[in-house]
């Protein structure tokens, strides 16, 4: 087997191996080992150590208490700013919002998370694990932009990581009942029309189908399972009352995070997919049962297997690949390590007959990995800090993390990322990154990786392999980066 195929596999399931390092001798075992453990995530140095020089506000929030306090502070600041709206001129009001809300919450919160996500992918213990985390944090999308949820986004996404070693049912349960999701999809407003709160007019909130619909459509069954609006309504009613617990004056001393508000919950039993969900003793058990049933439904296994194969293998994955992942899911009762190993094996088995054009983020991480270049530093940040910033560069490439426009996540098909403007930007970004590597004194090292990589990663009959042997190409840094990274062999993985 030619080394270009092994190289393709390392880009398929991770971000590649730089040209000056050895490819794994047993690629499948190399990848499997990386989904068997939980690598820590943080803002990392190139040597894999946690960055020590970060100011306190640039550290990730870990405990649910910290997260909910930050969320409440942000909410209070935002509410206070509405009061200011009447006192200040529009210009002063905008400046005030920039200083008190956008800089500390909408920008800082996201940039430190992006920095952690990218440096962990580049310098962490298990890049294969990171690729699967990118899949799951896209499957259960929580993006900023609703109800001041900015501080919940990163903690939600990171909360999925330990669950990747467990069962899908547990991941689904945690995703659906995490305050990040309850706020993002408005379930904190979802109130049963016959609930105590509605009958006594404590709230004018009513049914909100956002989470109920996505639970069936995006997270588990998918529309091809043929459920109806009635099922969406049933799931929505079962979800009534599940809300985030924040440190406000009405709930002093309560455990922060998620709680079940019986007063907002629709009483009685509800039907989903022909099954009645009844609360005999504990109304909150209705959701537990529904999540269990949905996680075990064959349509869920089918949907997830297909989506994983589209994400990792090809827009039209081989039926055999989908079948093997689906069987792994069903036979292991949704054990995600088993499922991940099945995906890895399918990637290896069907390597030659499949091809994937990856998202801008994955491509950006491939380029940095394979050229041994450090990403633009994002912290400490202000809007006016000069220089390239990773989130903005990703935005220029068409994927400004974490601002995913829709709850269905970033596109996973190759065809969604191929357009004239998208390709043009990737080509131009190579020039920008090449120049950056030079400014940082990493140009020589990058060139060594690229020249070595070109002979190893590109099939000898492809033009780029020969181009990069020419001294005049090696002497022109931008051209060399382009010949390597824009070669079809490297653009497809």
């Amino acid at each position, binding site marked *: 087997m030619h080394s270009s195929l092994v190289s393709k596999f390392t880009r398929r399931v991770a971000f590649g191996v730089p040209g000056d390092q050895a490819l794994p001798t047993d690629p499948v075992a190399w990848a499997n080992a990386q989904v068997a453990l939980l690598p820590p995530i943080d803002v990392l140095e190139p040597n894999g150590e946690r960055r020590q020089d970060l100011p306190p506000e640039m550290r990730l929030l870990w405990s649910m208490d910290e997260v909910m306090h930050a969320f409440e502070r942000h909410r209070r600041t935002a509410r206070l700013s509405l009061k200011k709206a009447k006192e200040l001129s529009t210009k002063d009001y905008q400046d005030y919002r920039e200083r008190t809300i956008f800089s500390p919450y909408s920008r800082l919160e996201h940039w430190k998370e992006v920095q952690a996500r990218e440096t962990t992918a580049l310098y962490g213990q298990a890049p294969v694990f990171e690729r699967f985390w990118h899949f799951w944090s896209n499957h259960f999308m929580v993006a900023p932009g609703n109800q001041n949820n900015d501080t919940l986004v990163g903690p939600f996404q990171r909360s999925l990581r330990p669950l990747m070693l467990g069962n899908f049912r547990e991941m689904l349960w945690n995703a659906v009942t995490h305050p990040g999701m309850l706020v993002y999809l408005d379930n904190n407003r979802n109130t049963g029309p016959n609930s105590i709160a509605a009958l006594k007019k404590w709230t004018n909130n009513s049914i909100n189908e*956002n989470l109920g619909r996505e639970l069936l459509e995006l997270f588990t069954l998918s529309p091809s399972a043929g459920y109806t609006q009635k099922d969406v309504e049933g799931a929505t009613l079962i979800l009534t009352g599940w809300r985030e617990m924040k440190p406000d004056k009405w709930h002093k001393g309560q455990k922060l995070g998620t709680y079940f508000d019986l007063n907002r919950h629709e009483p009685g039993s509800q039907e989903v997919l022909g099954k009645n969900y009844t609360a005999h003793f504990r109304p909150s058990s209705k959701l537990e049962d529904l999540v269990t049933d949905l996680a075990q439904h064959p349509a869920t296994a089918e949907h997830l297997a297909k989506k994983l194969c589209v994400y990792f293998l090809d827009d039209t994955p081989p039926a055999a690949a989908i079948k093997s992942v689906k069987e792994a899911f069903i036979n292991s009762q949704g054990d995600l390590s088993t499922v991940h190993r099945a995906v890895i094996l399918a990637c290896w088995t069907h390597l030659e007959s499949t091809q994937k054009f990856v998202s801008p983020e994955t491509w950006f991480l491939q380029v940095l990995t394979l050229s041994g270049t450090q990403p633009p530093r994002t912290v400490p940040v202000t809007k006016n800090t000069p220089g390239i910033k990773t989130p903005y560069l990703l935005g220029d490439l068409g994927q400004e993390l974490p601002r995913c426009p829709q709850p269905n996540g970033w596109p996973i098909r190759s065809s969604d990322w191929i357009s*004239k403007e998208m390709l043009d930007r990737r080509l131009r970004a190579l020039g920008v990154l090449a120049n950056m590597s030079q400014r940082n004194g990493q140009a020589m090292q990058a060139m060594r990786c690229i020249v070595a990589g070109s002979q190893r990663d590109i099939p000898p009959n492809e033009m780029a392999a020969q181009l990069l042997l020419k001294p005049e190409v090696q002497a022109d840094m931008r051209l060399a980066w382009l010949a390597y990274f824009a070669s*079809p062999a490297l653009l497809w993985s």
Partner: protein
Amino acid sequence: MNRRAFLKQSAVFASLSFTGFAPAWGQGHADKPRLLVVLLRGGMDGLTAVPPVGDVQYNTIRPQIGINKPLRLNADFGLHPQLETMHSMWQAGQLAVVHSTGFQYTGRSHFEGQDIMQTGVMKPYMSSSGWIGRAMEQAKINSGVAISIPMPLILRGHNKAITQFPNWMPTLRDRDLATVAKMWADDPMLRPYSDLIRDSNLDKSLSSMNKESFQNIRSIRGLARSAAISMRSESGPRVGLIDMTHGFDTHASQGAEQGSHADRLRDLDQLIATFRTDMGPQWGNTVVLTITEFGRTAAENGTNGTDHGVGSCCFLAGGLVTQAKIYSDWRGLNKSALFEERDLPTTIDVSAVYAKVLERVFALSSQTLVEKGVLEHKKSSLLNGLLGL
């Protein structure tokens, strides 16, 4: 030939042999109508853009943010004072307004609303193609351009549309472009793009813009110029799209004659003004259409702003507009006349307005649009005469 190109060719061949199909519009591509779509994301406040000055309730429900000095349209409606150019178009008979209009969707969610306004399908997330993309495919329009980085949903469903967006990153050199073209020559997915990328890196018409600062190019005027420069050329795209993201969601301090909503309307006015100037004589062949996901609450809220609502207004501007007129079934701003006692109701299905635009620009009849699954809509006799149809 890849599979897709083959299928497309056979499809064209079939329609020629069975129907003796002839293009509906004259010989020269230059005479063919142009469409510029402006997406106003966030929910434009129709009662600020086109205030119903003749409605006695207006000042009562909007004491702080009502528009007191609008530009005059007729006895019942005015135009926001920041929309000066559009007012001059009104006077020239080139601006039409449809008011108290919207989708048959009342969920008031940005996500869902922005999906629906682009897919034209009233259930969110049901379609992966947009109503303009499907219309272009149906009418065999060969080009469209979105001033955007990703391909917006509204233009999907058609593989000839391209995207372009002002880019600060240095252009590729000749030798870079030549290398890319050679490397991609054997790759069926990448090959079609090397020429397009070459054109956009060497584009003479756009290079005249390089003298301006990047900030200017990326400004709303810059985007309008970029669209016009592409669309005015004889072989240029017939459909353009500009995406104004998220400025219209004014829950607080939205202002009146001045303020944040007024700033966005001024942007819209500048966009249309610049586009008209740069289109030159082609303006006579053009219609600009504004699209927003929903309107805002009729009454102001406690923070001098407005919340998510239902009905809004829709602008049509350009040489293809035949009459300065407001198309509306105005039911007044009394609580009982409002949708759920809070929002301007949808009295005209805005999809029917879009259908008129598609009929005028692509010569697709209302019946074809429905039968071919391009765009469902509820016809309204109130729209008779819009765009001369």
